[in-house]
């Protein structure tokens, strides 16, 4: 007979690989964060500096500016993507011809690689040659091209738009799946009871979507908080740091300036914020298994 001990054998390879590549790095990041590391990465020459790295990160003006950007980038991307995607899910949540095709079309931004998307948008938003500017001018909305990405006032908003473009399909399919769990009988019962479409939506559909929405929003917040490719490829944090967020700063600190100790401290801070979100994510996932 197969005992429990043997059951672990099935999981062991996965645990082993993940332990090596996940648990060890987490520990190592914490470890490095209290050292000053030499720029040639000769780690035997590192110097213990206690919590100095944390102090330097938290005290830096550039970090403060990036924090505001990070907040705006994370919250705005999540908010717009959610609204846009939820709307699409509602509009798609009824049978009609070509529904599958339309859903597929709307999924394209989500599937395409972030790098390709970033390059294409960079081209669309090009200050001299961009097709968005050209469209605006051709339709008489404007007489001169937009400076989407070379202007400190508009660069972050432009990046957020691209990010929303990339992410709204994710919300769409999550919410669409959520909508399909709303019991038809309940909706019909409400209709018989005299509830109009808006009341049915508000009193039956919305309460049913609570958990899906929560999980979707948390996943989006995490993904955006860690979003790297779009800002890095499109602007690299520029111009003049106007689109700099935590992640791009950490990357620049680690692999541009080779300051691993400092970058590790920065990572730990980011990690702490992430884990707080992760806590709520798991709670949201576990919570719905229990009758409330």
């Amino acid at each position, binding site marked *: 007979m197969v005992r*429990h001990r043997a*059951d672990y054998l*099935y*999981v062991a*390879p*996965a*645990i082993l*690989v*993940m332990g090596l*590549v*996940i648990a*060890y*790095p987490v520990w*190592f*990041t914490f470890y490095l964060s209290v050292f000053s590391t030499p720029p040639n*990465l000769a780690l035997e020459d590192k110097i213990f500096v206690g919590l100095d790295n944390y102090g330097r990160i938290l005290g830096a003006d550039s970090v403060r500016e990036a924090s505001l950007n990070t907040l705006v980038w994370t919250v705005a991307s999540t908010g717009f993507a959610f609204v*846009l995607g939820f*709307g*699409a899910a*509602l*509009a798609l949540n009824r049978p009609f011809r070509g529904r599958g095709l*339309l*859903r*597929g079309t709307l999924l*394209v931004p989500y*599937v*395409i*690689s972030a*790098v*390709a*998307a970033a390059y*294409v*948008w960079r*081209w*669309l938003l090009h200050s001299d*040659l961009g097709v968005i500017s*050209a469209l605006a001018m*051709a339709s008489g909305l404007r007489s001169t091209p937009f400076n989407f990405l070379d202007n400190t006032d508009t660069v972050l908003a432009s990046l957020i738009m691209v990010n929303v*473009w990339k992410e709204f*399909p994710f919300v769409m*399919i999550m919410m669409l*799946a*959520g909508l399909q769990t709303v019991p038809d009988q309940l909706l019909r019962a409400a209709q018989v009871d005299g509830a109009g479409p808006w009341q049915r939506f508000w009193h039956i559909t919305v309460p049913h979507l609570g958990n*899906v929405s929560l999980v*979707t929003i948390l996943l989006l917040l995490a993904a955006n*908080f860690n979003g*790297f490719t779009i800002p890095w*490829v499109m602007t690299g944090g520029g111009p003049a740091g106007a689109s700099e967020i935590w992640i791009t700063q*950490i*990357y620049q600190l*680690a*692999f541009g300036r080779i300051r691993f100790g400092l*970058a590790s401290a920065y*990572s730990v801070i*980011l990690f702490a914020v*992430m884990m707080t979100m*992760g806590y709520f*994510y798991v709670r949201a*996932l576990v919570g*719905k298994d229990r009758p409330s």
Partner: protein
Amino acid sequence: MRRGFWPVAGWVYLGLLAVFSLLPMAWMLITSIKTQFAAIQFPPEWIPSHPTLDAYAELLSPSREIGRVFLRYLLNSLWVSTATTVLGVIVAVPAAYAFSRFRFPGRNLLFYAVLLRNMFPAVVFLMPLFIMMRWLGLVNTQFSLILTYLTFGLPLSIWLLKGFFDNIPIQLEQAARIDGASRFQAFLLVVMPLSSPGIIATAIYSFIQAWNEYVYALTFLNDDAKLTLPVGLQHFFTEYATNWPGLMAASFIMSVPVVAMFLVLQKYFVRALTDGAVKS
């Protein structure tokens, strides 16, 4: 549905969203069939007056400098993605099966750890992994990427496959065991054939993830000849000018297979992505 304000509003909304979704793709395609000269006109030619496949021909001809580089990146990407996928399936299938079938102590804890992986910021892992890879002598090898993709892909692969295994009634395996199969035979002869669509979908999903990945490839590889496609695209930016038609054609070639695979297997992926969130 009766005709009224909401259905019409829905159509208008979906139409606008479809334009928003496809505009970048459309402009990518249009730019890719222009000459470099035509591409940098402003206002642009909406429909190319002299469409040409030169950009594609150049990318795909091994005799041209740009083609040689591009084809190498393409092969590198193929190799890394395929290796990741194959190894991933080998590791994920037994694990997912265990998560689906066995009630061992610590099973839940383990699974939430797996879910938490969704929250781990990739950039946080870059430094320790980079140091680890250096220490293992793997920096600037594609194996470092395969190992990393494998790990970061596993949680979702396991989750996905678990969903497929969950849908196979346990009575089938019990029947097989009573019919004379060992536990392993029951898995091999009954469960595997039934879950092959799921395994294929999972495999393709991890392929797409590996194919699109950028950050680790950017960091772990520095030898030009070893780059994968996403990082290799930077090749089109030179100090003097950007080869927009070439870049767009390369982006297009890179995107077509994944978009096609995704759309064909849409049903499975949608289920996979949403299962955990909506199912209790």
